[in-house]
């Protein structure tokens, strides 16, 4: 059966669902908020532990793939060369996987943990600072990338190696066969579109508030709703333009440029900030992270601090899983020609190291100011009360504040554009039966829909509800990903045991 024939159903059902939920979020945001809060809390309360176990299983599985005989399988034909250079690949990986969120939380998260740690740790102390950094590394380290890698590796293997459409449903062929073309496959693809649109829309909404905070700090632009809406409109025009140019020229050029700018920003803060302190923070936090990796990975803290774990770790794990269809499909589409070993090691270590360094530079600088300050912990208070402004509040305390803030704004803006651009591309793919060149009409539809969703819900106050909706989708997706592991292993085992010996004869 022609897989593209299912694209229409997925597109129509997804659009109707998304529009319906956005309208309900706009008209009755309180109801959406209450319902999603109740479901979200019930899920984290009762099966939060399953997110930890599942994510750990994903990490172990992808590492196993890299070191096992499957590691030499190429995501493409046997002699295919990678489509993008290492730098282009890493840049796009980083921009899609972390980008805007990292800029948002790079300062705000360590300060939040520092100021509001679990009850058994004294707030605003050295112990709280150490806890804050290790936890930030943990939340943004190898685990989210393991989730992304499993998803993207599965899609890339079945698309480029096995010649199937780059859709999440394709991954399940070894288990359910032709049923991937019927309702089970469509449900999976619709769920993917659903999680992607809502994940990206909330990210865009929150990103817009951060840019607005930056503009207010640097240019004195009024910190109003109108400013946020104008920002969303401008960014929409930019990413729609980039999206029309295509993957090679649009996203790749922007991502490469932005990673260079990110390095420049980190380098400048490293130089003008407490350099030795930052390097000490980086070194000791990497040590603490690696030493405690297993404990961190599997601890829900049932005896002390469960609600903290629920609010942060479990929330993140659900968030990464809900984000994985988007990142997975995008990363798959840029990873053709790489071996599984190269893919896993590259995607697991390089973005994680860059993220660690980002946290050490920005979180370390902020903690240095807080621990050595007058005891008011003003920066931490901003992080708790107004997270979008924290980065700019920190930069204001450093030499070259204006230059740093402008660079940060540009970085934020470009990450905003690349996230939305790649999401538009991925949504187009998902709703076109896996076409690597989705039509402009579909890209425009999704682009406008996700920006409209972000804008409408920002105004109505339904953004939090929408974010929880995306996270609720993580629960079925966790099951989908566990089954995906089995399916991928089954397919690779078949290839290695049944096809490769035959090929060698």
């Amino acid at each position, binding site marked *: 059966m022609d897989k593209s024939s299912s694209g229409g159903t997925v597109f129509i059902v997804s659009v109707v669902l998304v529009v319906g939920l956005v309208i309900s979020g706009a008209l009755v945001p309180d109801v959406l908020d209450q319902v999603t809060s109740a479901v979200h809390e019930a899920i984290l309360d009762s099966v939060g532990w399953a997110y930890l176990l599942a994510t750990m299983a994903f990490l172990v599985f992808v590492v196993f793939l890299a070191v096992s005989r499957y590691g030499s399988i190429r995501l493409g034909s046997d002699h295919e060369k990678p489509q993008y250079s290492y730098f282009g690949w890493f840049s796009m990986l980083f921009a899609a996987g972390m980008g805007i969120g990292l800029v948002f939380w790079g300062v705000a998260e360590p300060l939040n943990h520092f100021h509001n740690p679990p009850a058994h740790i004294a707030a605003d102390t050295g112990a709280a600072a150490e806890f804050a950094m290790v936890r930030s590394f943990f939340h943004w380290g190898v685990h989210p990338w393991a989730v992304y890698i499993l998803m993207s590796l599965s899609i890339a293997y079945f698309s480029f190696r096995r010649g*199937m459409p780059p859709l999440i449903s394709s991954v399940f*062929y*070894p288990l359910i*066969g032709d049923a991937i073309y019927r309702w089970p496959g469509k449900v999976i693809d619709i769920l993917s579109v659903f999680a992607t649109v809502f994940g990206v829309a909330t990210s865009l909404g929150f990103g817009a508030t951060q840019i607005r905070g930056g503009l207010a700090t640097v240019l004195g632009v009024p910190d109003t709703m109108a400013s946020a809406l104008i920002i969303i409109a401008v960014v929409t025009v930019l990413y729609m333009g980039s999206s029309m140019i295509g993957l090679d020229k649009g996203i790749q050029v922007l991502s490469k440029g932005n990673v260079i700018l990110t390095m420049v920003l980190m380098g400048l803060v490293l130089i003008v900030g407490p350099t030795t302190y930052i390097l000490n923070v980086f070194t000791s936090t990497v040590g603490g992270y690696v030493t405690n990796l297993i404990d961190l990975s599997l601890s829900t803290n049932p005896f002390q601090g469960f609600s903290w774990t629920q609010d942060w770790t479990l929330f993140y794990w659900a968030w990464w899983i809900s984000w994985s269809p988007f990142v997975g499909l995008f990363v798959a589409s840029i990873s053709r020609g790489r071996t599984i070993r190269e893919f896993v090691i590259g995607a697991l270590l390089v973005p994680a190291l860059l993220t660690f360094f980002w946290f050490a530079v920005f979180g370390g600088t902020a903690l240095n100011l807080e621990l050595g300050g007058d005891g008011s912990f003003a920066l931490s208070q901003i992080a708790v009360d107004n997270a979008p402004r924290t980065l700019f509040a920190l930069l204001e305390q450093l030499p070259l504040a204006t230059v740093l803030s402008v660079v940060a704004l540009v970085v934020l803006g470009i990450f905003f554009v690349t996230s939305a651009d790649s999401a538009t591309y991925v949504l187009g793919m998902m709703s076109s039966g896996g076409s690597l060149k989705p039509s402009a009409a579909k890209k425009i539809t999704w682009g406008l829909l996700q920006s409209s969703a972000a804008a409408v819900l920002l105004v109505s106050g339904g953004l939090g509800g929408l974010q929880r909706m995306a996270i609720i989708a993580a629960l079925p997706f966790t099951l989908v990903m566990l089954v995906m592991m089995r399916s991928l292993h089954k397919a690779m085992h*078949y*290839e290695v045991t*049944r096809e490769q010996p035959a090929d060698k004869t």
Partner: protein
Amino acid sequence: MFERALVPLHLRERRPRVEAVVALLSRLSIHNVRLLHVAGSASGARRAAGKVETMAREIAAAVDFSDQLTISAQTVSGSAVSEIIETAVAQEADVIAVPWKRKNWVQRSLLGSTSLDLIRLADMPVLIQKTSPGRAPESGAPLSVMYATDLKQSDETVFPLIERGALGSIRLTILTAGQRAPDPVAEARRVDAAEASLTQLAERVRPVVEEVDTVVITGSSRKAIPAYLRWNKFHVAIIGKGSSGSQPILGSTAEEVAYRSPGSVLIIPPAVGGEVPRG
């Protein structure tokens, strides 16, 4: 041809179940059936000897093909499974035939299962008889037999039996189960290759078998073969006993098929010392 069979039984065994085993054996060209009771002690064996002899006589009188069969009885003492195997070897039996008594997982875990232990430990064919007397094959009609092949080593041991007509008059379905390939093109290639192999096997037995069908199914053989047998009734399913990496933990496919199949199952072990089972 199969000629001699050993049928282990305990004293509480219902006679119709043993008769069903003997009737099925007679359809498989067996001429000599020995009923064996393994008692826990020598004195128990002495006490049981008379009862087993009586049961042998009664069965001989009851079974249709008794004129072609010699039914004898023997009582020994010791551990059931090892005594059965030792006796079968000593008597040069061609097959050990056991009436099946279904046990659930808890019963199997706590009490064990002599039938499944025999499948695992015996180096000779084991027939697990499951067909109830009321559903036994009609006299004179060919037995419907399904042979589940792995298209590898089991063909070397099992197929010669069929080719030589060791199973008597049969309608044969040759089936193979395989894991689905990772994509539709590879899957079509897998199915084509399997069908071609089955067709070759079918051609080999056509001279001695009345009807031959071939079937390719998708899935793990542990699950797919019992599922196929649930929906398609055969008098006897034949499966080769191989070895796999997961066998010590999960048990062999043969054990699984024997346990799950609604009909009788004949399990053929790998050739011992390069020899195929006599037949």
